[in-house]
């Protein structure tokens, strides 16, 4: 067993006064600097300006699209199964494409239940769901408007949010409309 001696206070620290003056000097330094150089303050006035989020930010969900604007999703239910918050509700339907079995008729994400764990993105074998829209302040006035439907989740330009940032993603033949391996 090793006995660790806690460092006690030095005599100069025991009379407090010197240390108090040091602390006060530190804070008044901040005050004077911030009063006369307010531009140096690391403050982001949030609703008016937004902080640049790092490229790997796990943000709002979106459903990726094929080249013909149909969803990549094949309603395999892996994301809904992986979801610990049970916030993904999928209803499958027959796909018109003979090479694809199903597509989601309904794809709802209940943002009030979502815990932003990203398991759905990990589970998806088709890179059909991503959480890369850098919107970290999801808020609204009604419960209904915070259940995101398929149309809203697919309302984007299908491009990478951060062009130079390419995390490893599954690239599969199903991405194109009629591409074959």
């Amino acid at each position, binding site marked *: 067993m090793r006995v660790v001696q806690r460092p006690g206070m030095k005599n100069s620290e025991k009379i407090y*006064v010197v240390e108090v003056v040091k*602390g*006060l000097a530190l804070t008044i330094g901040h*005050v004077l600097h*911030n*009063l006369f150089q307010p*531009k140096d*303050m690391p403050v982001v*006035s949030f609703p008016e300006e937004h902080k640049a989020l790092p490229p790997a930010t796990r943000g709002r969900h979106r459903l990726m699209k094929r080249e013909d604007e149909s969803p990549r999703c094949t309603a395999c239910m892996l994301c809904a199964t992986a979801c610990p918050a049970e916030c993904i509700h999928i209803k499958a339907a027959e796909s018109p494409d003979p090479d694809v079995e199903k597509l989601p008729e309904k794809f709802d994400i209940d943002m009030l239940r979502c815990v932003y764990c990203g398991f759905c993105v990990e589970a998806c074998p088709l890179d059909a769901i991503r959480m890369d829209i850098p919107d970290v302040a999801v808020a609204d006035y009604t419960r209904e408007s915070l259940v995101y439907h398929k149309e809203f989740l697919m309302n984007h330009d299908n491009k990478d949010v951060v062009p130079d940032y390419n995390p490893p993603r599954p690239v599969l033949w199903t991405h194109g409309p009629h591409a074959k391996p």
Partner: protein
Amino acid sequence: MIDSNQLFTLINITVMTVVAWLIPLQFIPVFIWLERKGSAIIQDRIGPNRAEIMGFRLFGMIHNFADVVKLLMKENIVPAHVNRFYFILAPFWSMAVSLLPLLVIPLAAPISWGEHTIHFQAADLGVGILFILSITSMGVFGVMLAGWSSNNKFSLLGGIRSSAQMISYELSMGLAVVGLLMVYQDVKLSSIVETQGRLLTAWGHTLPLPNWGIFLQPVGFLLFLVASFAETNRNPFDLAEGESELVAGYHVEYSSVKFALFFMAEYSNMVVAAFVISTLFFGGYQVPFVSTAALTQNPKLALGLLCGLVALLKGTAGFIFLKGAKQQKHLYTGVKKNEPFIWSGLCFAVALAALVFLAVGLSVDFAPGVTAVLTALLQLLCLSLKVLFFCWLFVWVRWTMPRFRYDQLMKLGWKVMLPLALLNLLVTGVIVLSQK
């Protein structure tokens, strides 16, 4: 029947009583704003700037109005389990007691008005400083009553801690004042402040220092300062409301206006403490190195100092506002964008006006009445600046220091400050006797 002299004195005292009650009430919102904005700036934040009236935000001052509206609108709850009489009495007691001590503090040197004399002090009591000590020590009853009558263990613990702490530190506070009284040989506040207008004299040598309490009693000042932090239950001695341990201490059960009264009493106590410290140790209304007689004999000096100080302060404020306005201008539009520029411009305008007034004033001769008013204004400004500095010191220390543990608090009070105060008395006595 009362003659005109008595009538004049009566009116003078009445007006000064009202003023002495209004001063802490006026200082409270400023102090709360200083606390919020000061803490923000210390922590590299911008601080409150969201509440607005028609786009005007007054650098966060509007938050005080929002607070008042909020606290007045809240339900004024008296829980069923409390001792109703004392529960309601406690906040009123705290507030009333905290407004009293300013009655005996001189705000400026008395000026003569014809055959009358205007005193800027509601009551020049013979007991002076002892009155302040006794009244502030009554403040502990508010805390004790609130803590006990709430019938809640957190309140009770907060009240016990607070009363124990206040009583412990009152001792060293009183002893620190005794050292000061030995030097000044008087307890009347008006004569204490008058004495501080001279230059420091030791063993027949006059030193280039004002005869202030801090130079006469440096140790006494330190003890008094620490004790007044403890007396006002202020960080690092705010164990009465250590929120991590006691929720909020003695005012857990209070809501609405009764809570507001406790809150205001706390700040009012600090304003009073700032006034007492500046009066006892920093020369009160005295302008350093310039005595009242020098000011009344040289009106140009008084005018120069007054206008120069105003121009300096307003110029600095305008500069700071301008810097802040430039930093924020890309965020807002309309009134919100232009408001800081307006205030900055106003500050510069006032500074310029003061300089113009000074230039005009230097070429004009003044009547004695005007000179007296100028002197009183300058001394009021000087006292307010000292008080504001000590208000800032309260904020500054709070956002710098961590809180004491209860045993450390008691150890500091009884084992360090009390012996130090006694030793200070001994040394002071020896020095005072050696000068006789």
